[in-house]
């Protein structure tokens, strides 16, 4: 009897090839997922940076050019300054439907609803430290807050991004 010559793949060969391709696909999909998560994180961080820098620069400008700061203490949660136009400008945290924004009393929000504020080590959303010189003529303000994108407990912890913003401003004495 003539044995027919074998053509095509054996079962073993097919099994080996499938296993290998499955392993490869798993590895590449993990890589792809990490890439997507990383990209989302970078986007969130960029958003937070923009919002935080904007809020800081606005407050910095107004404080630097303020005429005076009436309440000057350490560890304040809001700040009221007497602006150039003689009016009081107040910076504070406004809570709205569970998320917080930095607001000023002129009705302008300095951060948008797409980011939230997180508490610092002292449990404050906005920390204002105002220093006064002995002769009470010079004042210096330290501002700090933490912006957060993503809700703890709702979003995955890998999707939550936080960044601290802080700056010091010397009030120009007039």
């Amino acid at each position, binding site marked *: 009897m003539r044995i027919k010559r074998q053509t095509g793949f054996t079962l073993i060969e097919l099994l080996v090839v499938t296993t290998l391709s499955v392993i490869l696909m798993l590895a590449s999909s993990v890589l792809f997922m990490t890439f997507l998560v990383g990209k989302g994180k970078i986007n969130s961080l960029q958003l937070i940076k923009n919002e935080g820098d904007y809020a800081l620069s606005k407050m910095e400008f107004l404080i630097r050019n303020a005429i005076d700061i009436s309440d000057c203490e350490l560890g304040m949660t809001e700040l009221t300054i007497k602006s150039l136009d003689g009016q009081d400008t107040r910076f504070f945290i406004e809570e709205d439907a569970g998320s917080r924004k930095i607001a000023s009393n002129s009705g302008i929000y300095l951060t948008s609803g797409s980011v939230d504020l997180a508490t610092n080590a002292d449990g404050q959303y906005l920390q204002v430290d105002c*220093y006064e010189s*002995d002769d009470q003529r010079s004042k210096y303000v330290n501002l700090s807050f933490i912006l957060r994108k993503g809700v703890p407990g709702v979003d995955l912890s890998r999707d939550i991004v936080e960044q601290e913003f802080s*700056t010091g401003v010397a009030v120009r004495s007039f």
Partner: protein
Amino acid sequence: MKKAQLGFSMIEILVASLVVGLVLTAISSALIASTHNLAQARYEAAASKEAKKAMEVFVREKVLLGWTRFADAADTAATYCLNTLPLTSADFRVMSEGTCLTETYEVAGEAFRREVGVQVVSGDEIKVTVTVSWQDGARDREAVLEQNFTNY
């Protein structure tokens, strides 16, 4: 009759495994380097933030103390270890001189050392250099921030 050879020869297998080995080594070393760089970039960012915080204390004290007392607090050339920053003007005026030696403080999971060099350039100019350093394996890494304070 000699049976025709099936499969790969020794040389072929050796060459193939050599090539595979080379490629794997290249990929893994690139991966390790990139994770390491990422961590160092994070520490670098944290370090420059820490340096800025220390510089802001000097700006603050120049405002609060006024030039004369600010300049009095500075010796001709001095180094201070400011792992913890002076909170008040009173603390600022009694900072003790000296380098950090082995003392460190932790930010973002890394041990940092913050030293501030104060150098009186002239009666109206003081140069402040903040150096935040950390250990990257056996290498010393640092972020430096310089500012000249003038009496205006």
